[in-house]
């Protein structure tokens, strides 16, 4: 449980920060897309007997770069995501059908499972997670500029295309690190919901980031504790807490308007 909590909180911070950029750039579905793509990576890892988190990481990073490449070749970004999305899923399904032995383990990646989080998982989540946060902090003001106004950012000499790729790669990493805890199918909620709660309540970007992180950490911690004591699926519990928080935000906004 402690392991899951440490990993969960790191993931909560990472996903909610990336999520603010994605939501503001209308790329909310990117996390979901990359998660499905990494399903292919997980299946490949199991098939070839490689550590699945590692193969998933390589797979989703490659896909992130591929999506960005397709965008520069004038393919619409949602189409580019959809193409890789289906490719990853198709590859995963084919590999699963080729070998019949690993379905139970695969389920733990699809829906997440605290109990199956290993020491290796936590090491990977911690090291890569902290590195990723450092990269985000390093490019914080440039990513903020691009998110607000891509064209003007270009005229300020900000390498927009390269940083767009960086953001995609960071998203891919966050997705893979999160799926052990919340599962492939629920990963995107960790990116989208905290940001969607914080954004309408924020007066500046700093508030949006910190608000999103606070909501996310609190929800993940609460969700994991509930899941642990009531023996529920961790990913599901976390996401239900997040959705409840989102509903509470909507009610609060409405009350505020009336007052």
């Amino acid at each position: 449980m402690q392991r899951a909590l440490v990993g969960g909180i790191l993931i909560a911070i990472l996903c909610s920060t990336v999520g603010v950029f994605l939501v503001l750039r209308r790329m909310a579905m990117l996390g979901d897309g990359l998660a499905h793509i990494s399903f292919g990576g997980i299946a490949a890892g199991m098939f070839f007997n490689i550590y699945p988190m590692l193969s998933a990481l390589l797979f989703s990073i490659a896909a992130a770069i591929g999506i960005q490449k397709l965008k520069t070749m004038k393919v619409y970004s949602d189409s580019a995501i959809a193409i890789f999305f289906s490719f990853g899923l198709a590859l995963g399904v084919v590999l699963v059908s080729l070998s019949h032995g690993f379905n139970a383990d695969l389920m733990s990646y699809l829906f997440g499972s605290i109990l199956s989080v290993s020491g290796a998982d936590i090491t990977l989540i911690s090291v890569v997670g902290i590195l990723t946060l450092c990269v985000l902090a390093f490019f914080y003001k440039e990513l903020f500029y691009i998110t607000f106004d891509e064209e003007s950012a270009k005229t300020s000499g900000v390498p927009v295309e390269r940083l767009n790729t960086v953001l995609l790669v960071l998203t891919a990493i966050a997705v893979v690190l999160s799926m052990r805890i919340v599962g492939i199918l629920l990963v995107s909620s960790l990116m989208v919901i905290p940001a969607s709660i914080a954004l309408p309540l924020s007066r500046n970007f700093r508030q949006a980031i910190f608000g999103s992180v606070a909501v996310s950490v609190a929800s993940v911690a609460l969700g994991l504790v509930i899941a642990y004591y009531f023996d529920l699926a961790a990913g599901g519990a976390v996401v239900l807490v997040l959705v409840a928080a989102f509903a509470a935000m909507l009610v609060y906004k409405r009350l505020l308007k009336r007052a």
Partner: protein
Amino acid sequence: MDGSVLEFENVSFSYGGKPALKDATFAIRKGDFVGMIGPNGSGKTTLVKLALGLLKPDKGKVRLFGKEISGFREWGRLGYVPQKATNFDQNFPASVFEVASMGRIPKAGLGKRLSGADMEAVGSALEIAGIASLREKRIGDLSGGQQQRVFIARALAAEPEFLMLDEPTVGVDQKAQHDFYLLLEKLNKKMNMTLLLVSHDIGVVAKSASKIACVNVSVSIHDAKSGIDRAIVCAYGEDFGRVPHHHHI
């Protein structure tokens, strides 16, 4: 060329075979306040985008501060206020200060935090733009005219020598427009900043600018005082009277 801030040499550009700019040759010199006029679709915005390196010319050369644009890296010497700048997501969570500080990035350097001196420069940019008291406000809560000033402050934050503005007053009320042009005159005369102002408002351009560039696929530059009639003819044609002239409301 000595003292030339922006230079176009036989520049042509077309969108899918349709020429937007043909053999444009002109220079803007240090201290100039150039007002750029021309009918819709005449290539004004294309010209600005070429000058910023956002588009690459099919033919010809664009130079900034004497340097060819493909090798130009000193983006801090340049400020840009885009067309429809105020057309952003009004719910975007960003304070006035945060937006203005984006403009400081070319001076601060990539991946570097803004230093105390950078913060001060942003502060004085807000001061010049006359919105220092709004610095903590969410940008979406401001009026159109105030938002316009935030984008000016963003462009000024890098302390540029050359400022390009593409139809900056679209959607801004009359009073705010008037104040805005006074601010531009101040930047040009008191701070010796070179300005390129794209506008459809010939009256304002003739009054504030020192030179007029008329764009109609080709480009020519005239003196604002003596050459206004010629500028209008070259931009809009001899039969200008037939062109309906009304202000957008």
